[in-house]
Structure formats: structure tokens, C-alpha cells
């Protein structure tokens, strides 16, 4: 499946949900996810199905002022 992740094209197999993606990426902790400019609440990570062509942004908090 082809997706756009944080601005870069990525090809992924065997993943269905947002949580699958996070598992593959080994990402956890405080994250927020936007798919095609729509926020995906953390409560839906397990159920939200990814589609090929999805534009996915995974963000977190970093140092800034």
C-alpha cells in the first residue's frame, strides 16, 4: 500500500489500521495523527482503516518557544 507519511512517500504491506502502522514504525507515547487533514482520535487508532494514497501526518511536541 502506498501512503504519504510526514511528507514522504512510503510503501507498506501487511498493515490495516493506524495502530498497525504505529507498531511497524515502533512509535508510541504522546502522538497525534492527521490523515488527509482529518485528525484521528487516539481512541480510533485500533479501528481506523488505512487506505492506499492516505496522506498521514504523525506529530509530537518538541522544544520551541
Amino acid at each position, binding site marked *: 500500500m502506498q501512503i504519504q*507519511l*510526514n*511528507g*514522504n512517500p512510503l510503501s507498506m504491506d501487511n498493515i490495516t489500521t493506524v495502530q498497525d502502522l504505529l507498531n511497524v*514504525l*515502533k*512509535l508510541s*507515547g*504522546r*502522538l*497525534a*495523527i*492527521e490523515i488527509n*487533514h482529518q*485528525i484521528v*482520535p*487516539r481512541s480510533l487508532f485500533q479501528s481506523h482503516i488505512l487506505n492506499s494514497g492516505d496522506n498521514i*501526518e*504523525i*506529530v*509530537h*511536541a*518538541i*522544544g*520551541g*518557544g
Partner: protein
Amino acid sequence: MSELTNSMAEKLLIGGKTYSSRLLVGTGKYKDLEETGKAIEASGAEIVTVAIRRTNIGQNKGEPSLLDVISPDKYTILPNTAGCYDENSAIRTCQLARELLDGHTLVKLEVLGDQKTLYPDIIATLKAAEKLIADGFEVMVYTTDDPVMAKRFEEMGCIAVMPLAAPIGSGLGIRNPYNIRTIVENAKVPILVDAGVGTASDATIAMELGCDGVLMNTAIAEAKNPVLMASAMKKAIEAGREAYLAGRMPRRAYASASSPIDGQFF
């Protein structure tokens, strides 16, 4: 001393929550997270700004993240929209921050208008503030030192107005004390000087003008010794606040002896 107790008692009220510290700090430009943590601890700050950025995919696994060091349990996290030059990216940033922080609605809104000065685009800021407030956010707004706009942001429902003292990261201090004082005199919400402070006396001056607090980042992070400067800023803010409450002596064009004339034997 009752006077001291009083001054300690009166606290900063932001978004229904009270704070003992009137110093708000950013988390950018530090050498590493350890220095960040030490400096913020030394500053005594209770409200800490953070930026929202993409996670690094496939990098620094298991490395501690900012919110591990600056825990939301200990600090009030204030996500900012730094780097946004338009209304929509600022709104998206706030919405992601709210999700990230479990429904947290306090945000620092800045919509920039110019890369050289990093001054706000007042018009776009106004539009973004309207939508964010309608969407339930508690907006602390970064603006110019224009008293008319400051009042407008207050009237539209921003919970704090944060005029700049000087360009972000310039360290030029309070460029226009007249405007800051005018804003303070007219305000019914907290006025926090945001951006431009360079050293301790700048923070003291802001507080002596009657500001309710000061937000800074570079002045601490880029000092040769950030932790010591953080401590200096903590004291500078308290000194300025107390001096404001104490009521300074009048300025005089000429001298006035401190020792009595009476009883001179010479």
C-alpha cells in the same frame, strides 16, 4: 511581613487556574533535554511552551521525548503555533496539540507576517483567534504592542494578550514601554510580554510596567549559562512584580538628601 505575604498571595490567573510564577518559558534552542529540564526547573516556571512538529520516522528509538522531561503532570503545557504564516496551519496545529494533550484547550496563537521580524500578521491572527475560540480553545494571543488591537483581542474572548517587547529572539528588550503600559492600563485580561526580552532587567521593567507576566525562551537558552540565567529571570520577575506593587518613589529633577540637615555639628 504582611506586605510580603500579600504579594505572594496574589497570583496569576490564566484559564481559570492560578499560578505562583509569573515567568512563562519556552523549550527551544537548548543544548539538550537535560539542560532544558535544569533551566526550566531553575526558572520556577509553571507554564511551558512547546512546538508541534512531525515525529522523526525511524530515528532515535526510545530516546526520551520533551514531554518525558517536562511532564504535563507537573507543568501546564502551552502548545504554540510558531512558524505558522497562515490561519489554517495555526488552527491545524492547535487541533493536533489538543489531541496530543488529551483535550487540553490552552494554546498560544501566533500567526506570523514577516520572516525578518517574525512580527504577527494581525489580520490572520484575528481570523484564527475567532475560529479557535468558537472551537472551544482558550487562546493566549501573540500580537504587536498596538493598544487598539490588544483591546480587540481581549474583547473577542482571548484569555490573555501577549504583546511583543521586541522581535522574537532579538534580545532588544522593551522597545516601547509607552505602548505596553497603555495596553496594561486598558486591560481586563492578563497581559504578558512575549518575545524580545534579552536579560534580567528587561523582565523586571516589563513587570514594573504592570504586566501580569513575561514569556521568554532565547534569553535563557542562549545565555552562556542558561541555568543561572533562568534563576536570574525568576528573581527578576519577582523583583519587578514586587516593585510594581510596592509603588516606586517619584522621579525628581534634582537631588534630595537622605540624611537630615538638622543636628549637623559641622
